[in-house]
């Protein structure tokens, strides 16, 4: 049986957005490094099941927002290294704008004075 409740805390597309942002900020990275980066940057606030990264990466590849090639990791392992494409940058901007609007909206509601 699948456990759907474990990933409740991320909205759809959030992981993809963070992956794109990470790749833009840090340059090309392999899967494990991306996961590490997101976790560390969020200060362990985001608990992500690491495996979910891979379906997200496949979706980004499919849309042409990231490109991948085989390379060697810092630990000398053969890994796939992902980099963001120009289309991916544009997408990231769109997503960021949407996210910020949403964030602002939600924040306003949450700051509403209780009566």
């Amino acid at each position: 049986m699948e456990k759907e409740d474990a990933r409740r805390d991320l909205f759809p597309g959030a992981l993809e957005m963070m992956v794109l942002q990470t790749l833009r900020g840090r340059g090309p990275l392999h899967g494990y490094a991306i996961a590490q980066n997101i976790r560390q940057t969020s200060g362990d606030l985001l608990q992500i099941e690491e495996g979910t990264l891979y379906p997200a990466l496949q979706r980004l590849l499919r849309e042409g927002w990231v490109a991948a090639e085989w390379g060697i990791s810092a630990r000398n392992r053969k890994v796939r290294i992902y980099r963001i494409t120009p289309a991916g940058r544009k997408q990231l901007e769109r997503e960021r704008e949407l996210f910020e609007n949403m964030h602002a909206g939600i924040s306003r509601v949450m700051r509403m004075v209780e009566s």
Partner: protein
Amino acid sequence: MRRFLQLFHRPRLDREIAGEIAAHLEEKTEELIESGMEPAEARLAARAQFGNSTAILENSREMWRFTAIETLLRDLRIGARALRHAPLFTAAAAATLALGIGANTAMFSLIDAVLLRPLPFPESRRIMVVWERPPKSVVTASLGTRHHQNPVSPVNFLDWRDRMRSFEGIAALNGPLVTSEFFHVLGVRPLLGRTFAASECGPNGPPVAVLGYNLWHRQFGGDPAAVGRTIRILDVPHTIVGVMPEGFDLPFAHADFWIPMPIDRAAAEDEGRYLTVIARLRPGVSVARAQAELDGVARRMAVERPVTNRDWGAGMVPIDEQVTGEVAPALWLLFGAVTFVLLIAAGNVANLLMMRGAQRQREIALRAALGAGRGRIVSQLLSESLLLSLAGGVLGVGLAVGGLRAITASLPTLALPRVENVHVDARMLLFSFALSLVTTLVFGLAPALTFARTDPNAALKLGNQRATGRGGRFRALLVVVEVALSLVLLAGAGLLARSFLNQIGVSRGFRIDRILTMRMFFSPGRYWDDRRRGRYVDEIVHRVRGLPGVEAASSVNLLPMTGVVSGSGFRRMDRPEPAPGTQPTADFVVVSPQYFQVMGIPLEHGRDFDEHDTMATEPAVVVNRAFADKFFPGENPMGKRLGLNWNVTHGVIVGICANARQTSLVVAPQATLFLAQAQGPMYIGALVVRTRLAPLAMARAVQEAVRTVDPEQEISDVESMEQVVAQSVARPRLESVLLAIFAVLATVLAAIGLYGVLAYSVTQRTREIGIRMALGADRSQLVRGVVRDAFGLMLAGLVAGLAASLVLTRLLASLLYEVKPTDPPTLLAVCGLLLLVGVCAAWIPARRVAAVDPVRSLRWE
């Protein structure tokens, strides 16, 4: 495009993602070890952090959209493998579905050809058939269910043509004779040449003809040069001006060719009502609006010409309703019946799937434990079902084709209009495919959902012991519904069968054994003169009487039991003349001497016609008992004189015969008067011959005798009277036979369903039964338990079915002859029958209980 290419690189993609995941886990493990964890612990922790790697691999793969197709293909492959491993189950399920889908496909094809396909006329919805509506006093039962549709008099047709503004065009026809706008109203252009010019349709127009496609092929081999050549019609050469395309025909007024019919108002003034009228509504004019206008016109016509039109009205029917209106209710009813059969079949397969599912719970639990989501398990189980119904669909189409062939071959041509359009086509295949898909959901969804809910822990822990109980109530409910549905069908079939038996069992009033019949048309070209025509028919009858093996021979204008009858008005000469429009009417039948003898109708008083009844003597009339009782109550009609609206204007009653049915078996004998052929000959006639031996054995000799009188005489429909009567009830027979077949099918399926449920529960309870026996339970008591279960299910089904029957058999009312839709004996009989079937179905499982060996059953498993 990228996605599409990925479809072909699937294994590489899988390898890549799997490799990535492996690298990820290794890096993680390494890191954890470096932070001081035990290697084994580190590996576990890395995995736990990562999640279910199989599911993630699958999810990653599913990012590439085409996986939907791939998943389906794989599910189907797995499904096919699973079905191959259970050949008995597969065969039983597919065969059951084939019966249901086949019956539905066959009925769909019939309905599609007869009812759904539009007639081959552009915008046929705008084409109306227009009739006169007789006053209530004139309506007799011999006019049948279409008593409100009376043919039209030429003068009234002309008035409609002049006055009706709702009609874009209006045309009249009488056999192949048509007025100028006929082709325009139907909206069909000729395949070759042209249709009639206005100048050709006036009085004294040139003899021209338009050919039907079939005649053109028969006579001219489809040669385009036929246009311009001449064809002899009724002994007159006609110039062919055009050929109509294939399929152009009016099913209620079939013709092989058409020739212009001029109508001269002055000459038509005192003619009767004999025209069929069609009209095309102007665009945007509704039937209701046109009918309202027609009502107004008819009212004015009744005032203007009260002698013929008083109390008469007019009505119109859309042409497709005219063609199929009579058969539509029965066909839809049968379609409803096969839907029931399919539901029962689907119910049985659902039952089979439930039982199979119960046995497969471990397999399903294992899949779930290995990470298959609920959706995946449902779609896996559904693909098995889909394969089953597709197999059933393919077999079903085969059954349908065979069944349709049997139906069309067994039907006389006119019993079902447009039945010649039935054939295997894309629509039929599409229908059965769609039906297979729907059926899959009907029978597959509930079991799939039930078993996808399986809790892997519980199911795996149960070990070898099968999970019982699951779906048990659902299965019982299925059986109850199946029994109820089959009871409804049995009730319907029983009622139709009784109705049919009532029809063929009526007292006809005439005999049908050893009578040969054949129909003829006496050419006006050669026999225009009444005297000559009368003598010609006399001569034919005389020749036939002289043949060895012939007991008696006669002629009649319209053969009994062919659904048609002629009738007209008359008056008693010894009474004052009735007011215009209030004249009594009766059926008129024109016969030669010996008619009553051939038909076995007893003469109660007076005499038969004989050779002394000629043009030179006073016309003789024989009336039937119904006529005598109705118009001469308490009097002796013998010798009374009648005035007649006929080609013979008066006559004297010389005999009274017993009542006999004339129009059809279901129409009671009407007041009828018989006239002598020699005194008022008709253009159409049928020969009726009483033979000493089998009537059809005389067919050739009689036809030869006719042709010695005129070698060119056309003869059609050479049949025994038994065949004529059988054809007259061909449609009710087809209806009751089909419904009976469907009902039997339903009952057998329901019985199998009941058997399956009982047998399964007995098998599952073998252990329990063994224990109870070991503890000293009475064997017969346990058997009674099974029987009680069976009766419980049957009873629930019977009650539900009876309730449904009481509602649904009402739909049959219009098809029933002298049986009420709620006929208690029929309902009781079918309940009894079903109960008996139920007992038989319970018998085997009960026997098995009786045979349980306590020792062996405890060792079982």
